[in-house]
């Protein structure tokens, strides 16, 4: 964002950096201070460095990145819990952090007493607290339990009350760290409705989460941090896509031997074994091994086999089973009208899954081979290979597949 834009800025960060001293060398006791003196070479590390970002007023801003990428540290600096080592942060209005729900609850006090205590700690004047107490109780859905000590609450009730207090204090900037997965489905919807209402009323929300699908729907803009440095920021879809590309390529680099390949042992399997499947792997369109597929991009199953005698027009069926159990689909060359001809000796064939319609998840592959009549089983290999499908966009989707549908007004 250049400074020429006219949107008012809620939080302005200029070259923000935070340096921590490593815990390993902290001289925590006086004895250590005396015996070993002051730490001569403190091992510092920068949790956040050189972050400049203007967060527009009234927007929902997401922060994504790996664990330890500095996004929570940045959030704590915006919230005033940490002071930046360098650079500056200026925020407009009251900043409230919803960093840990119910952090200020006292177990021996009732829900109602805790509302008042928590509100004061979050900086709300007493009158305002009294004005919204009923609203908070109503929103939390706790009913009569509000007059019980919170130590008797279930964990769900606890966070529901914490969330209710935090969102009702009407901050100008609300900071949320990984607390969106609160309560049951119904309460979650209520939370999101409330967050949208806050945004409509011109309040700014900054949210840290690993729930990329959730963020994509909620945020106006997303910034991606890596090792404390800003990688990219902008529209949610593009930022999430770049982040996932990085994650996917890192995962591939971390497991150089491709995991989604399997060579069979000499175990006995059903079928007369005149054709025996030897290897199964997933490969990209150029035949390079992959360790996971991506929704929407074409990939292939590469199946290697040997025959003990020439086999006429084998019927190969590939069954895909989702990790949760259901059979997703069965792909067969006969049904799809592909004739493999007569095969003999060592051979490999590829089955391309065009524009992979499988949604993210893990899938198991079972391979059955029949003769051309479809009545004689040649080989049956259960769990030949297992592979993962990842998303490029962060969209998780519902169900197992995304069918190539088209919408049109008629």
């Amino acid at each position: 964002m250049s400074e020429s834009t006219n949107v008012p800025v809620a939080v302005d960060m200029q070259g923000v950096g935070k340096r921590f001293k490593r815990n390993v060398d902290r001289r925590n006791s006086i004895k250590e201070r005396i015996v070993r003196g002051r730490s001569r070479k403190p091992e510092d590390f920068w949790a956040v460095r050189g972050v400049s970002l203007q967060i527009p007023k009234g927007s929902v801003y997401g922060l994504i990145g790996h664990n330890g990428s500095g996004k929570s540290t940045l959030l704590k600096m915006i919230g005033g819990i940490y002071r930046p080592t360098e650079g500056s942060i200026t925020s407009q209005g009251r900043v409230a952090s919803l960093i840990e729900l119910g952090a200020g609850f006292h177990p021996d006090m009732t829900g109602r007493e805790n509302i008042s205590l928590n509100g004061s700690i979050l900086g709300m004047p007493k009158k305002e607290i009294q004005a919204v107490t009923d609203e908070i109780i109503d929103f939390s859905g706790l009913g009569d339990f509000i007059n019980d000590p919170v130590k008797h609450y279930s964990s769900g009730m606890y966070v529901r009350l914490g969330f209710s207090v935090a969102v009702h204090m009407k901050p100008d900037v609300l900071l949320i760290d990984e607390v969106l997965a609160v309560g049951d489905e119904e309460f979650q919807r209520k939370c999101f409705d409330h967050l949208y209402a806050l945004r409509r009323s011109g309040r700014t929300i900054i949210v840290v989460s690993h729930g990329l699908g959730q963020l994509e729907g909620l945020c106006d803009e997303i910034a991606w941090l890596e090792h404390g440095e800003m990688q990219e920021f902008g529209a949610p879809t593009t930022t999430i896509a770049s982040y996932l590309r990085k994650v996917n390529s890192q995962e591939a680099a971390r497991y150089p031997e491709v995991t989604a390949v399997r060579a069979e042992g000499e175990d006995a399997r059903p079928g007369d074994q005149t054709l025996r499947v030897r290897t199964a792997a997933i490969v990209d369109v150029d035949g390079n091994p992959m360790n996971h597929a991506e929704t929407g991009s074409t990939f292939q199953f590469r199946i290697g086999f040997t025959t003990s005698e020439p086999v006429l027009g084998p019927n190969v069926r590939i069954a895909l089973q989702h990790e949760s159990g259901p059979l997703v689909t069965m792909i067969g060359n006969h049904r799809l009208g592909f004739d493999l001809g007569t095969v003999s000796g060592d051979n490999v064939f590829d089955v391309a899954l065009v524009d992979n319609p499988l949604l993210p998840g893990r899938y198991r592959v079972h391979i059955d081979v029949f003769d051309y009549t479809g009545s004689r089983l040649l080989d049956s290999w259960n769990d030949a290979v297992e592979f993962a499908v990842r998303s490029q966009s962060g969209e998780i989707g519902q169900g197992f597949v995304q069918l190539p549908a088209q919408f049109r007004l008629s």
Partner: protein
Amino acid sequence: MLTDLYRQRALIGAFANRDFATRYRSSILGWAWSLIQPLAILVVFAAVFSLVFRIKAPDLGNGEGASYAAFLFTGLVTWNLFSGLLNLSMTQLKSNGELLKKVQFPAWAPILGASIVQLIQVLLELTVLVLMFLWLRNVGWTWIIAIPILIGTALFAQGIGLVLSIINARFGDVMYIVAVVLSALYFLTPVLYPISMVDGQNELLSLVVKLNPMSWYVQSMHDVMYSLIAPSAAVVVALLVGGFLTFWAGLAIFSRWSEDIGELL
């Protein structure tokens, strides 16, 4: 800085409320414990020190003999005010650590809130002390002077307590050192004995007792409550101003050192 205290009075009050409501919530006798404890100590100490060690208290202000128990309790109340605030303050940052790591608010607020509740306990003890003197018919106008003396004591203790709390957050050893120093200081303060007993004793010991600021606070309380003598105005002003300056300095040091409290804990 002091105006900050006023602006955050609601927050301090909220912490005081919390500590007040939860202090004795899980016990049956509740607040009665805040009196049972010091009174039990009083009975034991009065028995041991007047019967075994044969310490003689000075005469009461009304000229009707002496009461070691009343003398001792006057000192104990003053000492408890000091040590109670000190000990309580020191642990507050750690016990509110989870909160301080997550929400931004002035770190002295929970400390001062806890101290307010401690002061309520002191008021209860004071009531018993007053009842005791009424029963002994040892009453005088000098009692009024106890108010500035006690305020001075509380401010003095709170100032030291604030500094110790922030040091204790960084170095956990401080708590133990303070425990040792406090118990030594207890015997170097004329609580169990009248200050006249150290006169003509070991010179160094006598000097230490007389230089110990707590001796001044306790001795002045003995004067105004027990002996019904008014100390000179200079002494009273010194005790009050000294307490106020200690508090102000403690708060200044605390504010400065607690800027990074979120990562210190």
